[in-house]
């Protein structure tokens, strides 16, 4: 109770302001990512191939198919049980990645 008196109004204000800034930063972050140049496909920790994103093409792997179209990368088919990688949104910026865990395939934009 005595401690509550130690809290001044400005204290609460500054804490709230900082929390709002944190939230704003959190939502603004995805916009910071720079456009990617190449796609690196890794399977089982080994690099299978590197492809430029600005050229449309289809890459067929064992149980997955990768489609590069319009500057974006998507996993078009995958025969893994839950198909999470298929449902992932198209990636196009540096650092973004789509991972197919069962097949140990990683699509990463660099």
């Amino acid at each position, binding site marked *: 109770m*005595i*401690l509550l008196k*130690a*809290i*001044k109004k*400005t*204290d609460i204000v*500054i*804490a709230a302001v*900082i*929390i709002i*800034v*944190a*939230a704003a*930063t*959190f939502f603004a*972050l995805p916009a*910071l990512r720079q456009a990617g140049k190449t796609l690196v496909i890794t399977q089982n920790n080994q690099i299978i191939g590197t492809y430029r994103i600005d050229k449309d093409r289809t890459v067929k792997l064992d149980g997955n198919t990768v489609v590069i179209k319009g500057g974006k990368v998507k996993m078009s088919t995958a025969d893994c049980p839950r198909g999470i990688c298929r449902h992932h949104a198209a990636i196009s910026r540096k*650092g973004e990645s789509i991972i197919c865990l069962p097949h140990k395939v990683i699509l990463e934009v660099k």
Partner: protein
Amino acid sequence: MKNTRKTALFAALLACSLVFAFVEALFPLDFIAPGIKLGLANSVVLLLVCAKRYKTAAFVNLCRIIISTFLFSNLMGLIYALSGAFFAYIVMFFASKTRIFGIIGISVLGGVFHNAAQLLAAYIIIENSGVFFYLPVLLISGVVSGALIGLCGAAIFKNKNIQKFLNANT
């Protein structure tokens, strides 16, 4: 105040801060995000700032960063820790001078700017803008830990003996 008393007081406060740093080092929260701390060691600096003993606070801050980094961390971390503590002190100094913030507000500002400055230092050193993805977490953790330490500090600061010990100039 006599010089010997000043020295003894400073040494006692510095030792206190280092013990807090040791306790903190026992429970690293680094798994949440790099650089997340409770900021316990800063409580001594916070109390000194609120007691308006600004020079002592600055000196304790500087010494505890250097010593605790050598004791509980590695040399590479020194740059980050120093920049964090430096900015935190500047902000706490002005926050205290302006008199609009209570001890909790000062602690929150200190914690937040400590984290923010460390992040900025990391960006300058490794030049990878990916570090800013940690900004939201660090800001929130700065508020939380700042508030907690501020509450502890408020409780301690109320004690008249502590105020005498710190030679508070309120």
